[in-house]
């Protein structure tokens, strides 16, 4: 129990961020039209690829003196994270491109 309280104290800023981000996430999403559910899910999915920062830090400070399993897994994590980020944003953009096309037609 004491350790948990200590964890709370040491990470109080982060825990504040969490509490406020939850509220923010809910606020930002409410009232979204059903048409946008899929692109929104896809875009949010790309943002969750923020783990890539962790991958960069991990591989960035990895010990390169030996060729270890850890290094391979780290690089793998980085590749996976990039797939999530780049693929996620690209797919979302492609979906939204479709909506854009319709609007220009409407303007004609």
């Amino acid at each position, binding site marked *: 129990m004491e350790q*948990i309280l200590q*964890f709370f104290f040491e*990470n109080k800023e*982060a825990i504040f*961020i*969490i509490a406020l*981000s939850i509220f923010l*996430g*809910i606020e930002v*999403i409410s009232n*979204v039209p*059903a*048409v*946008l*559910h*899929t692109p*929104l899910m896809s*875009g*949010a*999915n*790309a*943002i969750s*690829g*923020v*783990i*890539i*920062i*962790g*991958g960069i*830090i*991990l*591989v*960035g*400070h*990895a010990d*390169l003196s030996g060729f270890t399993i850890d290094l391979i897994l*780290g*690089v793998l*994590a*980085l*590749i*996976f994270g*990039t797939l*999530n*980020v*780049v*693929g*996620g*944003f*690209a*797919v*979302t953009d*492609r979906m*939204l491109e*479709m*909506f854009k*096309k*319709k*609007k220009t*037609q409407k303007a004609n």
Partner: protein
Amino acid sequence: MNPISDIFTGKAVSSGDILLELSYLIAALLFVFGLKRLSHPETARKGNLWAAGGMLLAMVTTAILHRNDAGNGIPMANLMIIIIAIGIGATIGWIVARKVKMTAMPQLVSLYNATGGAASALVALLEFPKAMAGNVGSLLVTILGLIIGAVAFSGSLVAYGKLDGKVGDIRAGYMKYINLVLMAVTLLFGAWLIFSGGNPVEQIWAVWLLFALALLYGVLFVMPIGGADMPVVISLLNALTGIAAAMAGFIYHNQAMILGGILVGAAGMILTILMCKAMNRSLLNVIIGAFGGGGAAIDREMGIMKEITVSDAAVLLNYSQKVVVIPGYGLAVAQAQHIAHELDNILESRGVDVRYAIHPVAGRMPGHMNVLLAEADVPYEKLVEMDDINPDMHNVDVAIVIGANDVVNPAAYDDPSSPIYGMPIIDAHLARNIIVMKRGAGKGYAGIENFLFFNDKTRMFYGNAKDSLQKLAAEIKNM
């Protein structure tokens, strides 16, 4: 200016550190604004680019400016490896995203979600030995990141397989007990690792075992859930990936990761709940997979289904004034959106008013049908949402139901025993004539009888949606 020092560690802070933290703040803000803009049709595309810009900024500044606790930056050799790894991931991710067919989009979202989960799980796995023995806080976030990331990874892979038709359902009642036990075992084992006080370096075997357990749980968790419920599950798994990334953010004390991750986690949870609402079901109901179970117990006189020939259907459509197309899952599977648009063009040229009625959960994901029809160049103004078309449905001469089933089942109104009772539907039954295009006479995905098919005004047109529409278009052209 006096040198700044870290208020916690007292360590001297360089201008690079300040720049890095500043870039994280900007990235986090870009995530928030991007997501906000993504939720409005006019600004959605820009919002996506904003969020992507935030991500790029954070990636670049981390690679250049990040220093470890010893104060060392990222060495050149490591930087090269990072660039190569990102290059590989970016190339594959970009090409696949550009090449994939629009119909396969939901699978791809699921697949990319799996990679995000895998990255989080791997980072947690590799950081575990560095966690301090007995430090409950750092062990807690690492273990949680590992479990949640692994579940999101294997679960999303199964969801991908299901959407792609590669994986079937396991719909046994005992699955939920197995899953409950497995979840309890995984969590208890994780808790033991956190509180045992053992040296993490000596517990690597245990953390791998935990990884395996979590992967297995992810598979078994998604296995019993039906294909039509996959969007809800993917949204849920997406939320989990966000939470896993946030846990990793704790490991690195990285506020951009924490904010981005939790933002996605919260938004994903809300989106999941919104989707459940559109289907009038609770999340628990989706997860336990009660769909298709109960109901249908009522023994009702169903009558007979009446077929229609191609020429009769062509005549009926050609001499109508108002036609409404109600597309569903079957149209997406048969990739019939282009030929559907061709048919509506022919009819329009004969002076028939054609519109598309889009149910909120039509297609494989909410909004997926709009994307598919947009791809086939169906003008935006022809797509009408359920709530707007229903009041006008009784004026419609012909409603063509293409590969949709549950979203037009009147049992949602009048059969309290039906599993879909209370779900909002498109009122196809109010149209003067109804043509149902369907592959065969069987029940829909949910295994529920559809009273619409037995309606006196309904005619069945059997066959693959694409073939049927092609025949119909050819027939009308010849008239």
